[in-house]
């Protein structure tokens, strides 16, 4: 071969994944009664390019399989074949199957054709007009293709001298692995004690299970060099063994498609015991996930190149200046430094933007998840995705995937009622789950909204009392009851279902989100549904900060939390009952927090009249924080306080300033808690005034 095609494999894999994603989403969006030509064309084009690519690179298994599907799609396209609902599922199965095959190829394995062969039979049957039911083959059908197709059970006990003759069992297993999926078990029964072992003797025997469409001749060919000296039996694989392996494979397949769509290479949630075969596949998959790439828009790259260009110009200008430096050139130097400052900052911003991805990467897995789950549960669900273009940091995105899946599963499983129940309570049979993402301040907010039954407060409370999480005589308001679901060891699932309620509770969701410096809370109205709201910082590393001064101390407010800063002359400050001072800010009342008081530090200005009030927003409310002075604004790199110390209330982290000293970054939500400003009291004030709290 004159050209090494393998260098293009990765591109093919990536494009194929993309094509499969396109097919999947087009299939899920398709209105079966009114098929849009454009949609079919889209699916057809994706299938076509996968076929072309796999043909070019010699992945004939995929090419042949895709060819059959493509032919069917072509018929649908030219209206010669009417597509029905079950065909959509069939095509989805095709997507999953090809995805698994490509994944196997990507991991450098031979792709297994068991599933694809069966699907191919079904597709061919449809093409021939024989089987229009489109029922995918169930597990039993694997036996139809006869023992020769499902696999072989090989017992191989080589002669003790096998290694001396230059034959290596491992090599044979590799060859076998090329024929199909294998699992090997060593038989150690003839292993002597350690003092009798000779290093070049082989004492082992192996039980090999080979799954794949292989003839007996192919299997025995592998052993042809050693067959004379060894004990070799080759038996057709028993039907049930093949079946088990296959079930495992299907399970793997299904699990894969949940994870596939996201760029996150999170570890697979290992919840089901798998067959050896599946385990092997999973183990191999893990080893391959290290080099991840992200796709970056050319516009982002272009602006980066521009920035770097500018930076180079500034640098050469400064260089020039330094050659003949006189006192007169100081203004020029300062100007140059200002430019350098500007460019560095812009460059940094642009580099950060590369890590920002639209949240659609995390959302894209949900249409399929909801589709599959609603079928399993027999519920009718409409999924609405909003704000898909909202960008957030890749790391945050990767780590938010699992909690999101959990929450959506929960909403589907526990939140939404069955269609008949919904109809009985006068709701549309079709339940609605909305995923909404938007930016608010320095945060990204993700909401999971369902219009289901809402949280059952009584059930939650009883459960919590039963578990000893709260005492029976505690008087909890609705919000506090809702919050109980986030406690460890709390799961109200009446029955453990396949979908949720596997013991991973909401506490894990909350913990995961808190690890990202985020919060999650729930609002619920009985009979009307629940809203889970996740708030996350946009990025974990850098923050725009406003430095402020209190006495000798410097603190930092996240710039994005600041609404405004004002100087008060005292006339707008009121004291309300309960000892909380409020500031009348236009037509809103804002509680005042004296930072020196809650932080126990000495301040220059202790009364509201002298100092500055910084109006900040956090936890859905505004507060006015009394400080001595505002200093510079600058970008700060967030350092963890927990790493060597412990969490400090009111402080979200620390940073190192230009002069090498440490400065603490304030956490508005924490400050509000620390100051004990009650949200309810605040709301009351706001409400009585006829304005709504932010």
């Amino acid at each position, binding site marked *: 071969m004159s050209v090494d095609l393998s260098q293009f494999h990765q591109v093919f894999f990536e494009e194929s994944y993309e094509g499969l994603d396109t097919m999947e989403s087009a299939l899920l969006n398709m209105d079966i009664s009114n098929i849009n030509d454009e949609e079919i064309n889209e699916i057809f084009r994706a299938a076509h390019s996968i076929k072309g690519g796999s043909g070019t690179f010699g992945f004939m298994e995929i090419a042949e399989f895709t060819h059959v599907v493509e032919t069917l799609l072509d018929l649908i396209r030219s209206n010669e074949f009417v597509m029905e609902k079950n065909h959509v599922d069939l095509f989805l199965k095709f997507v999953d199957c090809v995805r698994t095959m490509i994944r196997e190829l990507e991991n450098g394995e031979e792709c297994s054709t068991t599933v694809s062969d069966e699907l191919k039979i079904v597709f061919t049957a449809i093409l021939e007009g024989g089987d229009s039911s489109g029922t995918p083959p169930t597990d039993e059908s694997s036996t139809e293709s006869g023992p020769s197709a499902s696999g072989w059970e090989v017992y191989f006990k080589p002669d003790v001298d096998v290694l001396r003759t230059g034959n290596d069992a491992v090599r044979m297993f590799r060859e076998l692995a090329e024929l199909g999926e294998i699992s090997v078990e060593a038989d150690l029964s003839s292993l002597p004690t350690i003092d009798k072992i000779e290093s070049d003797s082989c004492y082992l025997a192996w039980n090999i299970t080979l799954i794949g469409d292989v003839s007996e001749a192919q299997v025995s060919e592998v052993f042809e060099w050693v067959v004379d000296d060894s004990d070799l039996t080759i038996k057709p694989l028993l039907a049930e063994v093949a079946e088990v392996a296959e079930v495992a494979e299907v399970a793997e397949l299904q699990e894969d498609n949940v994870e596939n769509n996201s760029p996150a290479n999170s570890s697979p949630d290992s919840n089901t015991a798998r067959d050896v075969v599946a385990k092997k596949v999973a183990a191999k998959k893990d080893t391959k996930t290290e080099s991840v790439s992200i796709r970056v828009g050319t516009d982002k790259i272009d602006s980066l190149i521009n920035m770097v260009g500018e930076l180079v110009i500034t640098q050469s200008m400064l260089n020039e200046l330094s050659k003949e430096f006189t006192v007169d050139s100081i203004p020029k130097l300062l100007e140059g430094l200002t430019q350098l400052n500007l460019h560095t900052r812009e460059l940094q911003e642009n580099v950060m933007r590369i890590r920002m991805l639209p949240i659609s990467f995390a959302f894209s897995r949900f249409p399929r998840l909801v589709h599959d789950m609603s079928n399993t549960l027999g519920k009718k669900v409409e999924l609405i995705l909003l704000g898909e273009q909202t960008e957030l940091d890749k790391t945050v995105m990767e780590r938010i995937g699992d909690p999101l899946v959990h929450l959506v599963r929960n909403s589907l499983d526990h939140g939404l009622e069955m269609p008949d129940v919904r109809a009985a309570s006068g709701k549309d049979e079709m339940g609605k789950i909305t995923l909404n993402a938007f930016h608010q301040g320095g945060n990204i907010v993700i909401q999971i909204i369902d219009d289901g039954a809402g949280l059952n407060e009584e059930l939650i409370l009883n459960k919590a009392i039963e578990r000893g999480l709260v005492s029976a005589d505690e008087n909890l308001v609705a919000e506090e009851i809702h919050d109980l679901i986030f406690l460890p060891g709390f799961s109200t699932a009446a029955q453990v279902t396949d979908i949720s309620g596997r013991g991973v509770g909401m506490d894990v969701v909350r913990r995961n989100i808190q690890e990202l410096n985020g919060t999650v809370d729930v609002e619920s109205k009985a009979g009307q549904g629940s809203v889970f709201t996740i708030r996350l910082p946009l990025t974990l590393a850098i923050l725009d900060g406003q430095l402020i001064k209190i006495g000798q101390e410097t603190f930092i407010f996240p710039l994005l939390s600041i609404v405004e800063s004002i100087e008060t002359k005292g006339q707008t400050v009121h004291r309300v009952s309960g000892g909380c001072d409020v500031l009348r800010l236009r037509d809103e009342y804002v509680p005042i927090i004296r930072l020196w008081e809650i932080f126990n530090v000495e301040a220059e200005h202790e009364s509201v009249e002298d100092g500055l009030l910084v109006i900040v927003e956090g936890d859905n409310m505004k507060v006015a924080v009394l400080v001595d002075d505002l200093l510079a604004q600058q970008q700060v790199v967030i350092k963890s306080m927990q790493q060597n110390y412990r969490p400090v209330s009111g402080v979200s982290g620390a940073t190192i300033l230009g002069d090498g*000293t440490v400065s603490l970054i304030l956490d508005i939500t924490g400050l509000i808690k620390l100051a004990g400003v009650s949200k309810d009291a605040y709301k009351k004030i706001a409400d009585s005034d006829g304005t709504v709290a932010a």
Partner: protein
Amino acid sequence: MTSEEQAENEEVTTEEASDQYLTFFMGGEEFGVDILSVQEIRGWEPITSIPNSPKQVLGVMNLRGTVSPIVDLRQSFGINELTYNDETVVIIISVESEGSPKVIGIVVDAVSDVYNFTRSQVQPSPELSQTLQAQYVKGLGTTDDKMVILLKLSEQLIADVDVVSGRQLLAG
């Protein structure tokens, strides 16, 4: 370290396995920590205080890019003569904690010496009251002419604690 002491220490090393301790002074008493837990010794410099921190936690310091808490060990041991001068030093040590070890600076009056103590030279500390300070004491190392209180510091350094006097502790 006098040459006499040095000779003595070397003699000890050859005899049996021993551990090295960095010793320092606090309130006139000599304390020691396992030298392997010591990362560096720094001079005293002003640090950033942490709001509402336990009394003994003076604040945080920039340790080449990481933020480390600084604990005045003298306060942990109830020593009330707190001076911050040129001799005051911060010993950066690493203590075990859940997860990764924490790097904490401890403020002491002055660094003294490095000693080798064989296992037999370390005696268990006398029955002390169940205070946190007692938990820090691993044993008493003795050489011919002096006694060193050997400490095993923990994450508890940065916890909220009641402070008892170090004298009380020694007397106990």
